């Protein structure tokens, strides 16, 4: 019975932890402009993140090594450093967006100016990393993040024309009012939002934090293969809500209140209250993960002791890196940038940085020196190579599309 509960907990946490500010904002923006015609990107992204989260978790469980340690061993110091710098900057950008997202969600709840919430949010993120255990941290934010199910409930409540929605999703086309380049720009952005680069670092480092062995692979597989697709369904639900309420009214998503509007329309104040809990939990959870990931990647590259499983004094440089990352993120936010804009840029740059993370994982999960007999099977490899092509294509297309479309305007 406790095993079943454990499995359920893992899956629920995976669903609730799937969404971050990037997913929430990008799906809402896309839904309000393109309806569900980009839903296929979410499907693609979910398959991709399932594939790579599973590979990186398996690598960590079998070899006991976290991703950036392996990247340095495999690519050498110079190339790995370039990888580190790029990945670190993108993760830092994402961290900034997440902390901004916490502040925006709290503003929605309290009508207090976000810039007053930002230092509070940043401090709270640090405090949780400093004092809370890894598993409780993941479980609480994951379970509370499940409140975002309210989007799916709201969509049903809104009583949309389901056949029209499904048609839109299954036979995608560029809407008349939009330019194809903008369509593909948002495809790349949505892909970057679903396949966040830091997730691979976080997942594999988390596996080492929790001391996974080969016995844990099965549980992790269940969490990922059941949890992530269900989380993907929530992503599509967010786009669906925006498509049903915002698209006909021509409302573009430029703030979190636009994202919340469909939920308010469908379920009133109670639904919005649930939504706020979910928003704070999801962005807070993602802020924790990106802050920790910044520390993980630097510490693993340089060979420092790291991890929440050590007392902070035994992983001093790691914790200092995490603190610096949070402070820098806060500093950027306090200059007054729009956190929604930061989010939009963070997902695009995530798409750019994707190959850096995924190629090493694909290669190492095939290497018998690290994996013994638990190397990738042929199906995983075939899928993995297809996705490598997709990931590289998205990465190469991202910046040109960003410039061409003026970030989607």
């Amino acid at each position: 019975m406790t095993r079943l509960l454990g499995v359920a907990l893992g899956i629920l946490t995976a669903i609730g932890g799937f969404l971050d500010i990037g997913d929430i904002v990008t799906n809402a923006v896309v839904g309000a402009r393109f309806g569900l015609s980009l839903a296929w990107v979410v499907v693609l992204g979910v398959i991709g993140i399932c594939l790579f989260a599973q590979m990186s978790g398996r690598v960590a469980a079998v070899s006991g090594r976290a991703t950036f340690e392996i990247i340095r061993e495999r690519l050498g110091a110079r190339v790995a450093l370039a990888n580190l710098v790029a990945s670190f900057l993108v993760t830092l950008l994402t961290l900034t967006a997440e902390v901004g997202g916490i502040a925006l969600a709290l503003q929605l709840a309290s009508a207090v100016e976000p810039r007053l919430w930002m230092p509070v949010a940043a401090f709270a993120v640090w405090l949780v990393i400093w004092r809370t255990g890894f598993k409780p941290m993941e479980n609480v934010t994951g379970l509370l993040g499940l409140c975002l199910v309210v989007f799916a409930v709201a969509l049903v409540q809104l009583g949309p024309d389901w056949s029209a929605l499904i048609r839109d999703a299954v036979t995608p086309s560029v809407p008349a009012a939009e330019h194809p380049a903008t369509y593909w720009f948002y495809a790349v952005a949505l892909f970057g939002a679903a396949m966040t680069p830091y997730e691979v670092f976080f997942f594999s480092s988390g596996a080492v934090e929790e001391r996974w062995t080969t016995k844990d692979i099965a549980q992790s597989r269940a969490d990922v293969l059941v949890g992530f697709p269900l989380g993907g369904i929530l992503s599509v639900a967010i786009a669906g809500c925006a498509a049903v309420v915002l698209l006909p009214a021509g409302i573009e998503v430029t703030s979190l209140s636009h994202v919340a509007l469909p939920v308010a329309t469908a379920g009133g104040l109670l639904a919005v209250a649930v939504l706020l809990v979910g928003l704070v939990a999801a962005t807070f959870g993602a802020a924790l993960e990106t802050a920790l990931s910044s520390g993980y990647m630097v510490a693993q590259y340089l060979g420092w002791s790291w991890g929440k499983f050590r007392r902070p004094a035994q992983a001093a440089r790691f914790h200092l890196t995490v603190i610096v990352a949070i402070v820098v993120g806060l500093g950027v936010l306090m200059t007054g940038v729009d956190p929604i804009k930061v989010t939009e840029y963070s997902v695009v740059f995530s798409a750019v940085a994707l190959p850096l993370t995924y190629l090493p994982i694909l290669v190492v999960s095939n290497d018998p020196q690290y994996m013994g007999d638990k190397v990738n099977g042929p199906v995983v490899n075939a899928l993995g190579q297809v996705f490598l092509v997709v990931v590289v294509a998205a990465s190469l297309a991202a910046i040109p599309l960003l410039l061409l479309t003026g970030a989607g305007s």
Partner: protein
Amino acid sequence: MTARRRPRRQPADAGYPPDESVGGRLVDARAHLLDRQVHDVDGVPVTAVDDLELVEGRAGAAPTVAALLSGSILNTRLLGGHQPEPRWGRIPWSSVAKVGVVIELSVRGEDLDVTWTERWLREHLIGRIPGGQHDPE
């Protein structure tokens, strides 16, 4: 195109002449030592191997590995140039117990010079923040 006379290549399986014992395990320095993680005797990470120090053997014998190098030597490796020897962060080769997927030492990380930044930060910063010395919940 000048024809190049290639010396006879020994076949892969011939290995090395059977009457010559290699006298130990063969490893490749760049493939198996460089950029590897170094753990101390308790399994705590110490550093990554940024370089190796080789010293000439006595009387024309082959050079030996004197130490693992780490720290600011990485800058020289990445950017070029030459760093004076006293500034190298050294882990003497005699401290190495085992070379595997990670390099395991026979000494505690605390006792090594290369970890001084960790100790300094512990004493002066991280250890001073409330809760820094507590075991994780």
